[in-house]
């Protein structure tokens, strides 16, 4: 899905936190958003996900404004994802269950993504009792299982061990290639951004620099 942002402004009280003239995100590309803390990266991502409103400007997704049906094709993964008080498997299949996907397809897709992110052995474990790295892998599995067209990642590998980072990066790149997914990823790790992304967006005080 292509996303076009024009003259976007977001303010908290009198402080402008995002001020973007024009920026486009093309389908099938991975974008890295980086910058200092407070640069407006997370706010930008939340606006794109429809989780926060903006004060001025226009955002279109394949030339359409964001509505309920488009929201179902976009997902956002935060640095500290919330996992439901149920098993890892129940967490992962949740997006498919609410879409009334056939149970056999649910089983197959869950199996594939759990294998891909190496969380199959955690299947019946309570999701709230997982370590940081395991939680992030399960949350990513849950975000990818329903094949979203846009994946918004807010520091998905912060405070995670190198082996888990590799698994997560591989899964992201694989899905990006296979499904032509638009991925926008915030990261403070410049090496990671260079390694993974087609384009890098540097932000400072809400603006692209």
């Amino acid at each position, binding site marked *: 899905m292509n996303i076009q942002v024009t003259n976007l402004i977001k303010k908290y009280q009198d402080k402008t936190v995002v001020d973007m003239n024009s920026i486009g995100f093309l389908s099938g590309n991975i974008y890295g958003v980086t910058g200092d803390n407070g640069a407006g990266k997370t706010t930008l991502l939340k606006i794109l996900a429809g989780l926060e409103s903006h004060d001025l400007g226009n955002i279109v997704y394949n030339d359409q404004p964001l509505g309920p049906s488009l929201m179902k094709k976009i997902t956002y993964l935060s640095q500290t994802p*919330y996992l439901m008080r149920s098993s890892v498997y129940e967490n992962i299949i949740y997006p498919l269950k*609410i879409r009334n996907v056939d149970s056999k397809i649910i089983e197959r897709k869950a199996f594939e993504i759990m294998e891909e992110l190496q969380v199959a052995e955690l299947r019946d474990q309570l999701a709230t009792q997982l370590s940081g790295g395991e939680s992030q892998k399960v949350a990513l599995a849950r975000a990818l299982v329903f094949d979203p067209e846009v994946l918004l990642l807010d520091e998905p590998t912060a405070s995670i061990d190198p082996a888990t980072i590799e698994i997560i990066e591989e899964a992201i790149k694989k899905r990006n290639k296979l499904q032509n997914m638009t991925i926008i990823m915030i990261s403070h790790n410049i090496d990671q951004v260079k390694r993974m992304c087609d384009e890098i967006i540097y932000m400072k005080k809400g603006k692209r620099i």
Partner: protein
Amino acid sequence: MALLMEGLKEALLLLFRFDREVYGIIGLSIGLSFTSTIFSAIIGIPLGLYLGIKPFRFKKTFTRTIYTMMSLPPVVIGLLVALFLSRSGPLGSLGLIFTPTAMVIAQMILITPIILGIVYNDAKQQGPAIKQIGMTLGAGRLQTLKLLITEMRITLLIALVTGFGRATSEVGAVMIVGGNIKGHTRVMTTYIAMNSSMGNYAVAISMGIVLLLISFMVNTILYHYVTGE
């Protein structure tokens, strides 16, 4: 100690004698507490969820007000309800004073803020994250609400148990608005208070033990239901 042992003996006798009056008192106590808990939950749970998640002006003031209302003095509430429902009061024409309905109203005023406060507090902390997960995974409004209730089920049950516990243990307000009328508005707590004031300590203790047993049973059932243990 001797009084307690005598009370325990009396409690067993009370239960196994199948005394109609005693079972009537126990039944009325449970029935009233259950009714007031259900009505308070119908008001408190949706309101607590909504206000907990929704950002609004004066939220901090609202929080302080709710916490204050969680410790409303029962006797004062009883007095106010009695003034409103008494024959000469604004709602006197309804003829509710010294009826079980008046007792339910008083209990509701006391426990609604408790249920609301517990739900509101947890919804304020957890609610936005749960709502965000629902939205980002493609859940509609009803699906998000269902997710919220499922995720907060333990808190909701804690709120219900606390509300029910407060209702069953309430004495001041129900005494004033109910009048402790034998066979009509006499409940376990007013029965205990009356017997205690008359010096029938063994009878009072025995009913106290019954009250504790009921509370323990309700908590056990709910604990089992929530945790599966």
